[in-house]
């Protein structure tokens, strides 16, 4: 039970990083931390007591496996996270090229 709560604490750390940091790169790292926390939570949901890894092998019979479905979900989610991160870093580099700074308090061209 406590390990799920720690996962959610890690997620909240990532959200804090997005909300309060001023450097663009630190905001991106905050998003990455939150993503990893959600993936970890999904993998922890799959654990069965005393289970083995869900891979067949030709010489042994495996009777109790952990649930393999969240592993497939997390693989997909990792690829999605990679694409989002690559796009965010590309946009951040172009912002540096145009504005000359990474500080978001100085990138306020759009008015209210």
């Amino acid at each position, binding site marked *: 039970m406590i390990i799920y709560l720690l996962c959610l604490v890690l997620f909240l750390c990532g959200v804090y990083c997005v909300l309060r940091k001023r450097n663009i790169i630190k905001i991106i790292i905050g998003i990455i931390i939150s993503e990893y926390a959600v993936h970890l939570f999904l993998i922890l*949901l799959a654990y069965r007591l005393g289970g083995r890894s869900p891979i067949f092998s030709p010489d042994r019979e495996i009777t109790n496996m952990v649930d393999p479905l969240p592993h497939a979900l997390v693989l997909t989610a990792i690829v999605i996270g990679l694409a*989002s991160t690559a796009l965010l870093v590309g946009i*951040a580099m172009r912002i540096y090229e145009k504005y000359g700074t990474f500080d978001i308090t100085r990138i306020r061209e*759009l008015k209210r």
Partner: protein
Amino acid sequence: MVNSSIIPLFVAVPLGGAFLNSLLGRNRKKVTDIIGVSTAFILSVLSFVALRLYNTHGVLVYNVGGWKPPIGIGMVLDGLTAFMLVTVNVVAFCIAVYSVNYMEKFTSKWKFYTLFFLMLGGMNGVIITGDIFNLFVFLEIAAVASYALVAFGTERHELEAAFKYAVMGTLGSLFILLGIAFLYGYTSTLNMADMGNILAQSGSANIVLMVIVLFLMGFGLKAALVPFHAWLPDAHPSAPAPISAMLSGVLIKSLGIYAICRIFYNVIGFNQEISAILMFFGALSMIVGGLLALGQWDFKRLLAYSSISQIGYIVLALGLGTPLGIIGGLFHLFNHSIFKSLLFLNAGAVEYATGTRDLKEMGGLASKMPFTGTTGFLGSMSIAGIPPFSGFWSKLIIIIALVQAGKVGYAFWAVIISVLTLAMYIKVIRYAFLGKLKEKWRGVEEVPLFMKLSMGALALACVAGGALLLPGVYEAFLQNAEGLLTNGTKYATVVLEAIK
């Protein structure tokens, strides 16, 4: 089985168009245009075929790869799906035709079409899927493609708006994934029909409350409900005009409102608490969007705030829960796609001709650009709710439904904001189109052919939109969608029977 095999084509055709464009259309303009417009045309024809198929055969389920749900992924064609498919694909076709001429000013038009069809494929996938994780994957495809499209011109304000939109959108998606994780842990299945059955039988548990909160945060951010709306007034004006029309017209509806409908009505089950929350957020969006839009002098930023307000109308009507309310909400969704896209394309045409978006600098453009002026006038009258245009009928149904259900306070605010909407659009028309022609605009001329064609088609749909309430068309289009939502979690049994 042969009948339902049209369903995966809605995802396969736009993906095929996108990758063919990336391979063949590198530097050849004509090839890019032909592939782009023909793919969009095929999709809009297919959506009408799907609507007819639903009306003759009932609910259709397609098993991907031959694996039967709930083990495999199922794609479901029912009333709400057919309704949304027609809306999304027809509007996308008009926008694809418009961008043949508008994107001449940007380099690398093939990249635009590739990203556009990836986004369209993602949106279609969200609408047709019957599996909740598949919905998340398609939602991410459409969302990442839209972040790239907002930053397409790589000017300074476009990049800043795209960064803000991307960070907030990724956070929203993470909340949705957390909600899906909780639901999977509780019900141990990912199929939406199966999940609906299990949640209906087990009663209300505390974890379902947490899932409702997480989904409201996530999907509310995608649908731009207040207080999750902060990305929209920066992202929608900064994008190029066809992308603004696409984002405001179909993306926030397909990704946000359709997903809210599907999950809160069919999976979790509709009860009093969800109704109260949705109505409160809808009314808040309506009021905040309307009030903030009055003070704007940037043409597209005013339209973006007005989008927030109209989405508030739709969520307010859908949160009511009575059949008349749902019909009003869905009809307003269809109408809003048409006239908001038309208005954004209009703003794009004005920007194409004059190069500015500031209302204080424009004036008297109706004498030089009569076609744009007329379509802009039609769109504005329709969104403000003037009879006999389509916007009047949908707002009337929403207000009647609110009064019939006894929520007179909400109905009062709906009428007030409708009057405010009329005021803001009269301001737009007076400053942009009427009045004296300024000296520097002597040389502007009317927009090219394709832009005129697409704006004309959308304006025609605005005028004729009231015809959707006529007896024959009404059953075929709106009533099936509404019947599906009022069924609630009994949808699950209908789908599970239709699996062969």
